[in-house]
């Protein structure tokens, strides 16, 4: 009986301990900003890992989500009260504001977040992080900073890629599912286009990128218990990052919209 009461308290304490540890690690990371000459080279490598290699999957997922948006809009337009060329604006708004950053965030959680935790976690359990420190390298500026920085730079770029592919997918589906011509689609897109929506999507991208990579790094850094521990941290990175992204999405919308 007591256990049932203690368990949630335990979880609660555990959560705040973890949060404190995370904040501490991030503070260390921001303090290491001044040793930029050390990690700039690594940042370039990470930009390739995090950014360039993720372009295909981001293109594919956003293409299809744009197409689905179009098809669903068509389905809702069946009543006939709304002119079909409005579909361009619906796809445009949804993709720029929500779909492109969100899809990028979730796909990257699985792809990059999991990879980073597995990499850093393996380094932790095989004592490579201790070894780095024994050679007087600060593991935070060596391992975490380049990844977070690379994500902050590359995520907005990935969101732009997702924007284009999503709208392209929407356009393609609109032509096929509801006979909306390209001109009409673009007319819809332009009529309600607000540059701020596109900017907001990019801002979200930056926040998501920093959130995913820093959570993944933290989870890798605090991994314990061998290969099994690496597996556990990886799973929990994906779960936590997904929740944080959805939460951030809401918070940012409240702040910026």
């Amino acid at each position, binding site marked *: 009986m007591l256990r049932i009461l203690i368990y949630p308290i335990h979880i609660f304490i555990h959560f705040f301990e973890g949060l404190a540890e995370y904040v501490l690690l991030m503070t260390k990371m921001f303090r290491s900003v001044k040793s930029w000459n050390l990690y700039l080279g690594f940042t370039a490598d990470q930009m390739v890992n995090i950014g360039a290699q993720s372009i295909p999957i981001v293109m594919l997922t956003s293409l299809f989500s744009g197409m689905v948006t179009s098809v669903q809009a068509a389905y809702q337009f069946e009543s006939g009260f709304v002119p079909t060329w409005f579909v361009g604006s619906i796809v445009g708004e949804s993709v720029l504001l929500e779909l492109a950053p969100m899809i990028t965030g979730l796909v990257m959680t699985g792809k990059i977040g999991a990879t980073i935790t597995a990499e850093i976690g393996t*380094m932790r359990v*095989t*004592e490579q992080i201790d070894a780095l420190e024994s050679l007087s390298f600060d593991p935070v500026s060596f391992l975490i900073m380049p990844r977070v920085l690379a994500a902050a730079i590359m995520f907005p770029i990935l969101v732009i890629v997702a924007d284009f592919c999503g709208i392209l997918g929407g356009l393609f589906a609109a032509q096929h599912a509801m006979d909306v011509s390209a001109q009409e689609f673009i007319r819809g897109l332009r009529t309600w286009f607000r540059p701020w929506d596109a900017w907001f999507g990019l801002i979200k991208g930056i926040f998501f990128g920093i959130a995913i990579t820093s959570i993944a790094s933290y989870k890798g850094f605090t991994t314990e218990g061998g290969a099994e521990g690496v597996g556990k941290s990886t799973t929990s990175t994906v779960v936590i990052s997904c929740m944080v992204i959805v939460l951030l999405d809401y918070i940012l919308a409240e702040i910026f919209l």
Partner: protein
Amino acid sequence: MINVKELYKSFEKKDVLKGISFKINHGESVAIIGKSGIGKSVLLKHLIGLIQPDSGEVWVEEKLVNTLSFTQLQSVRAQCGMVFQFGALFDSMSVEENIGLALSKLSEMNKEEVTQQISKSLAEVGMENSEKLMPSSLSGGMKKRVGIARAIAIKPKYLLYDEPTTGLDPVMTDSINRLISKIHKQEDVTSIMVTHELRTVFEVAERVIMIHDGKIKFDGTPEQIKLSNDIVVQQFISGNSTLLETEA
């Protein structure tokens, strides 16, 4: 000289070190022994500030290690080469880059000298011409050798080995033991090895410190430990698990 005074360390609810004190003079070759999970690695990591004690002092020469900042620790770490249990080579770097990384921070060599020092250290551990290999293509014994090469490359005064022979086959164990002895003699270093392999103790060490239940149970020569009549020490030396059954 390394001087450890009244070291205490616990993790969460577990008390690992409960008042450890010892001095190691320059040139000694010391084995720290004890059961698995007793805190040998934890103790070794205290010596170069990888772990901070709850209380107590760790002195390396005239520096109080547990009060130094990360930057101040660099001078201590430049004197101490640490060989990790499974080598702890950086996966993403070649053998050459692994050793080069150590030299880049802890020595003042120029590019040419670094290249020379890398091949010299590799030759010393019997791994000539392996500069371009990646750690994933090395066997366990080879990883340990490269780990040793990385540690000796910085020309340290102290060499710290964590389980240098654990998990190796008998022949490899012998060759690593010889290597440690050779380096100890040639390089004028203080060698401290943590191990639970008695063979390494008797073949390499001149002094043995045994840790049991967070405290020092024995401190003396390998000859003395063989003659000890302490039941815990005897059990460890003889590998007989039935000796203590009445107590447990």
